[in-house]
């Protein structure tokens, strides 16, 4: 399976990235990522996350790896959800730089939609960044509407 080019470009654009994990007792957890790097050939996505802010999410990934991530464009709610297994990998300098650029462009995108920087700051946190490398197994359309939840790709 390949992540198609359009989708890869979408994931790397200023879209909101939200993560779902769960612990050993199936209690779900929520987090936000501050940047994504798509490796199309390997069919995986690196998600940059503040472990300081989202401690439980990172420990869930260390424990069981199961991850769901939704990419949503705030201007029109176009959304995709990717599910698969993730591991915590060392955060490269490029990842940190990318997170910085992502937070800046996201803040400016949201400010165009009328949200002040002070309001969005708590969602864009760069403290103690870790990288979650997700091997995509399934990709779904998540845009509100009739097609929501439709599977578009699955790892054979």
């Amino acid at each position, binding site marked *: 399976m390949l992540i198609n080019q359009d989708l890869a470009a979408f994931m790397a654009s200023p879209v909101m990235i*939200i*993560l*779902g*994990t*769960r612990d050993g007792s*199936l*209690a*779900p*957890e*929520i987090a936000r990522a501050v940047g994504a790097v798509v490796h199309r050939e390997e069919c995986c996505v690196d998600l940059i996350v503040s472990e*300081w*802010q989202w401690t439980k999410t990172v420990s869930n990934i260390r424990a*069981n790896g*199961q*991850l*769901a*991530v*939704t990419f*949503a464009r705030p201007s029109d*709610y176009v*959304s995709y*959800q990717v*599910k698969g297994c993730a591991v915590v990998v060392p955060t490269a300098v490029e990842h940190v730089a990318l997170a910085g650029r992502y937070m800046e462009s996201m803040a400016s995108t949201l400010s165009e*939609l*009328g*949200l002040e920087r*002070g*309001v*969005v*700051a*708590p*969602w864009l*946190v760069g*403290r103690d960044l870790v990288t979650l490398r997700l091997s995509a197994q399934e990709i779904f359309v*998540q845009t*509100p*509407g*009739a097609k*929501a*939840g439709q599977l578009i790709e699955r790892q054979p």
Partner: protein
Amino acid sequence: MTIRLRDLAACFEGVIPSIIATAAPDGTPNISYLSHVGLVDDERVALSNQFFSKTAANVRANRNAAVLIVDPRDGRQYRLDVTFEQTLDSGELFEEMAIQLRATSTQVGMGEVMRLRGVDIYRVRAVHVVPSPSPTQEVVSREAGHQLMAAAVVARRVAEATDVGSIVDAVLDGLCDTFRSSNAMLLLRDTTGDRLVTVGSYGYDRSGIGSEVLVGEGIIGTAALDRRPVRVSDMSRVRRFSSAVQASSDEESRTRSIALPGMLDAMSQVALPMVAHGTLRGVLFLESSERLAFTKEDEAAFAVVAMQVAAALALAEAEAGEGQSSAPTTADKPMTTGRQFRVVHYAYDDSIFIDNEYLIKGVPGRLLMHLLRIHQWEGRTEFTNREIRLSEELRLPDIKDNLETRLLLLRRRLEEKATPVQLLRVGRGRIRLDLTGSAILEEVA
């Protein structure tokens, strides 16, 4: 410190999308945005369920979920540990959420897409603050009970008013004084039932008196159709329904309609149905350029005021009286001095143009023509409600319920257009024409 859900009321205003995470029995997580999360009480929240089918399936197998809500004032995030309890597809809570969703989504052309399937009720087991490096802003909460005190002040002013016009003024001025709302308007239902007509407004560049809204259209029309309050706390998520047509006299004369007044930068709006005696009388509407200007408590206070105004208006109509026949007034000859002005009446829609400018149409238009004609025949300027009702020429529809409203509409429109003919209310059930020129009447079929 334990956080109570009611302290997080701003998070439930639908300004910043909330998030829900669930897990399937095999451990696969699911993460999704939610369009509406409502506060039920200190232990429960209600989630709108339009299409998040995977979430719905997951919580039926594994009832534990996590919900992230955001305070739109400072961006602070709260994570709720929740347990799914049940789905409601009817009842008060369901209706309230369905209307809210419909009012906001029809405006962005998503009415059908956003149709509410059910409201999922979750019990909240714990509330956690998500860590944030940014300082928290101290959000000043308004004094408790403020709304009740303010509503009492407005209610007293309304109660003191004795005619339709002063009731309308009392409520609009009262609300804007006591609730620090910058703009408000009051619309009354036309007897044909399918439209609402603006009879008073506060804070706008133009009054918009005589402008119309179809029942079912936009936030005002939805409140009328469903007879429930509709409130929006962040209009930037809702594209403006009405195009910003520059309202000019030319535009009015061309379309024979008056544009609804509106704030181009409105962020918060609330529309309250006015019901009395089981009948919808109109809609009270307030708006503000501030986000989150109106809380749920404000809405409740406005709703009470709106009902009282409906009752007061119904009473004013019923008690307007028939008026005593007036003694012949000094002006027993038609006004022939002063500037001449042309009044054209188009019979097909009863629209009136004075010196080529559109004034009004429908019954108020027919009323004005009738009064001017009698003035020309008899020289008389005073009239009683009784003779208007009995007039065969007027062929009035069943307007016994709202003759006063029609006269108010006509009076205010004449005032606004500063025409050489004005209408005055001179006592219970009595009105007077005030002319500063001589009218040339013209009939067009």
